[in-house]
């Protein structure tokens, strides 16, 4: 297990390097001169040159890349081109909201997804199964912003069950419930499909028939025998959700005014604040790599065969 963890950890090194390189190149290719942006539109050419020298923009590209890596190593993501605040500070300040949103969304999606998936597998072919299938296709297909706007209009606007803006959420959880539900719908639908199909696959196997023949109660078969064996695909989906939390939260946070990372990213994009965008992209890519690393460890722990398979080819 320790060897597996170490090899898997080493495997992330080229990926991380690639991410850094791509993020650097993207920022380099972005049109517009960063020194010009910092200096302002009316700066003299000398002032721009001075600022460029200060920022190290006149150095050769490999040297700039090294300097960039060195700064990243100490957690320096640069400063916002708009507010001049350190990007790392802003991320630390805004991340908790997005994390809270993600955790709540996960809670919704796991509970709803598991419930729908189990019901679908248990009553396979019946009315409940059909209903769950239709709902999950809808959940996967309907764009998240449509869900968001409809929920906002009906539940927050007309029925007034929820606040229409989560901007002053502070330490409270309540304003985040509706955004989190919106964010969770899609993955709940996804999870329901995966749970249903992997449960059906397991339930058709011989050991389940044996257990049933022995007279093991249905609930015990479901939870002790079937669900445990369907765990891997379920964990995959949960991991995918966790790591791509930013995708959905950009949209959800924009609609519901959540002061988190997604909204921050959106504002930065609208203002062409490249250092901030780069910082957020890097941050979320790292979270993705980290979560995937943890997931693989969990897989290997659940199913030892994975360990051999994963490095069987290379």
């Amino acid at each position, binding site marked *: 297990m320790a060897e597996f963890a170490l090899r898997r950890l080493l495997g992330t090194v080229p*990926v991380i390097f690639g*991410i850094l390189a791509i993020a650097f190149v993207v920022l380099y290719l972005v049109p517009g001169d960063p020194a010009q942006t910092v200096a302002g539109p009316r700066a003299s050419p000398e002032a721009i040159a001075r600022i460029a020298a200060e920022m190290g923009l006149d150095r050769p590209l490999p040297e700039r890349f090294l300097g960039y890596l060195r700064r990243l190593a100490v957690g320096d993501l640069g400063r916002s081109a708009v507010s001049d605040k350190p990007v790392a500070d802003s991320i630390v300040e805004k991340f908790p909201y997005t994390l809270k949103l993600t955790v709540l969304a996960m809670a919704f999606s796991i509970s709803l997804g598991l419930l729908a998936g189990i019901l679908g597998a248990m009553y396979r072919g019946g009315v409940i199964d059909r209903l769950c299938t239709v709902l999950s*296709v809808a959940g996967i297909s*309907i*764009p998240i912003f449509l869900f968001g706007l409809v929920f906002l209009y009906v539940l927050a606007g007309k029925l007034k069950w929820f606040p229409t803006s989560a901007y002053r959420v502070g330490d409270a959880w309540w304003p985040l419930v509706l955004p989190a539900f919106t964010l969770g719908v899609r993955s709940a639908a996804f999870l329901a*499909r995966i749970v249903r199909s992997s449960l059906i696959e397991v339930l058709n196997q011989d050991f389940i028939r044996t257990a049933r023949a022995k007279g093991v109660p249905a609930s015990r078969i479901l939870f002790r025998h079937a669900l445990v064996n369907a765990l891997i695909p379920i964990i995959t989906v949960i991991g995918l959700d966790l790591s791509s939390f930013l995708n959905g939260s950009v949209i959800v946070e924009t*609609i519901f005014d959540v002061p988190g990372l997604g909204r921050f990213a959106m504002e930065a994009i609208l203002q062409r604040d490249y250092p901030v965008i780069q910082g957020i992209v890097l941050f979320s890519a790292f979270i993705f790599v980290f979560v995937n690393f943890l997931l693989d460890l969990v897989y290997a722990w659940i199913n030892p065969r994975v360990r051999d398979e994963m490095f069987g080819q290379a």
Partner: protein
Amino acid sequence: MTELWHRLSWTGRLSLLGILLLVGVALAAPWLVPHDPLETDPQRRLARPTGWWVEVPVAVQEPIEKDGALAGRSVADLLATAGVPVHLATAAVPTRPSTVWKPGFWLGCDQYGQDVFSRLVYGTRLSLGIGFSARLFALTIGLVVGLLAGYFGGWTDWLLMRLVDIFLAFPSLLLAIAISMVLGNGLLTVILAIAVVGWAETARIVRSQALELRSAEFVLAAQAMGASHARIILTHLLPNCLPLIIVIFAMGMATAILAEASLSFLGLGVDPALPTWGGMVAAGKDYLWAYPTLAIYPGCCIALVVILFNVLGDELRDVLDPGRKGNWLA
């Protein structure tokens, strides 16, 4: 083709018909719309839906000359000045009815006075067109990378799969955003941004298929007979991946259309003046409280198309690729 049709269930057939219908709408858009989707009119701003036909006043008769001696004078007026008696002059010019009947604004107008229905119809064109191009692009790259990695294995595989890992590690929306930042707004940018996000997933699926096929007996036989790598890949691996490719394509269309809609919704898609569904939702969002349908109608269009492609993809997978049933993620 007919065999495929017979093997599809009725939901599959229904979704296929629905998609064909939408493709028809996209192709015939110019003949289907009652109004120019880009024509703005401040007087129609946020107008409520009307009936099938509306009675509109005829535009004031055009003066014969913009400027100069005759500027601002009607035909009757000119005839009168030329010495024709007044009653003859007015009779010479046929009296026009003061109003005409024109097609109505069936779903109302947006904040620029543009006809929502016409924009929705044209949106079909943009949505399907962008989705299709992006998918084709992503499929080509993914196919090449996946086949090479799966067939050659070893270092080629390792290197290409790390590349895939890197692309999968970026949150897809942010990657697309980064690309549209570098290349600026535009049709090609959006297509490229969606394709760059989609190819990695395709490459991974194709690779696993190619990996299986590599050790199949007919491939080994071809190798033993001295067939070149290119020949084996093109004539043995590629045709055997075809069912998989069709499934990936249908499913990918759903993802690509959603991605385009999300980018447009965030204002990072094509020119916001163009009638994309995502852009219409974004524009309608600002009027959500008073005019919710402005955002809801285009949103429903997106949902409908994506549902159709997802259902068709599911059905095709069950028919063409039964081994992988259900376990699509792995």
